[in-house]
């Protein structure tokens, strides 16, 4: 337990000192929140305010930044430098290293979300009609899913140099095909077929229905099933092919 707390403290310290990590995790999603708020303001799309439509997408984007962009690239970088190899010579346990990284990233997700909620509600009057407890459950579920995808990517990526480009491609694919910036109906058919299997699409839909429109968790069971499937598959890939060196 003491070792785990120590590693979490280390992760937080490194986080605050890594400018790229601070940018991706905090500045990037907050920038989109403010940008959309300023552009769309009180515009109404159909029956829903534009910013209300956008808000869940920005939350999903923040989760993907954390899992796919940051967790995966930093793990590949530290592995490439041989840091984990050096640590394996100390009594520090490997599950402590991974556990601390997951807890740290989850804490970052909570902070990101609180900041996005604060700016959304007080700055641009985002309308949260749903249950906050359900929101937290979806957030935790989504965070685990994208962290798991991030670690699966990190195990499959071999070289440090290819980590950032590969993660960027996956990130933007999930972002643009996930109905986060524009609705799925405007996409060509083949793209919407891909979109319908992506976890970003389904988490986005689930958060929109539950948090913005106030639906219960039962309404979004299919979305949760698909996100859960991604979580499990990535988890199995991460555990089966995990590499420390």
């Amino acid at each position, binding site marked *: 337990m003491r*070792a785990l707390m*120590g590693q979490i403290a280390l992760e937080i*310290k490194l986080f605050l000192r890594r400018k790229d990590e601070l940018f991706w995790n905090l500045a990037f999603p907050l920038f989109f929140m403010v940008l959309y708020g300023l552009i769309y303001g009180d515009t109404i799309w159909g029956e829903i305010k534009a910013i209300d439509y956008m808000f869940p997408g920005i939350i999903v984007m923040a989760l993907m930044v954390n899992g796919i962009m940051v967790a995966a690239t930093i793990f590949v970088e530290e592995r490439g430098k*041989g840091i984990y190899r*050096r640590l*394996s010579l*100390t*009594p520090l346990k490997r599950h402590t290293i991974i556990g601390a990284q997951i807890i740290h990233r989850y804490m970052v997700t909570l902070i990101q979300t609180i900041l996005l909620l604060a700016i959304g509600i007080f700055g641009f009057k985002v309308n949260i009609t749903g249950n906050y407890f359900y929101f937290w459950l979806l957030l935790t579920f989504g965070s685990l899913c994208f962290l798991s995808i991030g670690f699966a990517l990190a195990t499959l990526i071999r070289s440090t140099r290819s980590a950032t480009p590969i993660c960027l491609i996956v990130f933007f694919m999930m972002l643009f095909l996930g109905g986060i910036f524009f609705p799925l109906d405007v996409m060509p058919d083949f793209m919407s077929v891909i979109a319908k299997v992506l976890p970003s699409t389904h988490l986005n839909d689930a958060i929109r229905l539950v948090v913005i429109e106030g639906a219960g968790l039962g309404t979004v069971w299919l979305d949760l099933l698909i996100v859960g499937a991604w979580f499990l598959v990535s988890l199995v890939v991460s555990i089966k092919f995990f590499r420390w060196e």
Partner: protein
Amino acid sequence: MDIVVKVDNLTKKYGDLIAVNGISFSIEKGEIFGLLGPNGAGKTTTVEMIEGLRKPDNGTIKVCGIDTQKNPENIKELIGTQLQSTTIYDQIRVKEVIDLFGSYYKKSIPSSEILEEVSLIDKKNAFYRTLSGGQKQRVAMALALVNDPEVLFLDEPTTGLDPQARRNVWAIITDLRKRGKTIILTTHYMEEAEQLCQRVGIIDHGKIIALDTPTNLITNSGLESAIEFSCLPEGADKIKQKFKGAGNVSELGDNKFILNTKESSKTLKELTRFSDDNNINLENISVRKATLEDVFLLLTGRSLRE
């Protein structure tokens, strides 16, 4: 004397390549033991198997009486390791990383003492990424010392360092020796092995081909002096023929040759006379005491520096 490390018939294969081929040795408490050999000889593979980083295909390893393959976790508290290239987090300060590593062990030395030991006190608040190569190497040594280990592994501690930084590292190792630490050191610098180690195992193609104190290795090889000279290959061939009985002529490359001999002044006279008589133009002649490098050359026919 207590045996701290005992290695028996250690073997490691990578596909068809036998990297380490049945190596056995033991190290006494307080000894600095050197593994000397060219790059790719199997030094690093050997120490990394003892440290537990690589699994041997065959053989047994005991550190402080503990079988490292049966109890890989138990020996971590007892050993300190400096890898050939240690990299840590760029965004961490020197003192922070020493404290961090100290927290991983049941018992650890305060970072202030370690900083003094490796002369990094004035750099304790510097970020790791801002350090020079020599300073980073001393941080790696500090991390190896943090748990006051029974056995210290230093894998090529001075490779790639400038002469000043190398001397700093040597001073730290000499100091550790005075304090009675048991150290296993790998190097491909013969002067490093000669200066620092009480016993040296010369390793080539995965085998220990000689093992003794540096002085004994040189004396027992029958090489007391070495005459170095440059000349054209045709001349060298004639010299090789002539001095077959008196000594061993080896080629260093670039038309440089070494003639090892027991009777340097007599052989030198004969050499100059012979080359005069045969119109061989000798240049850059120098006579020196034989070194471990010459022993290696004699045993393998190759130079360590290749």
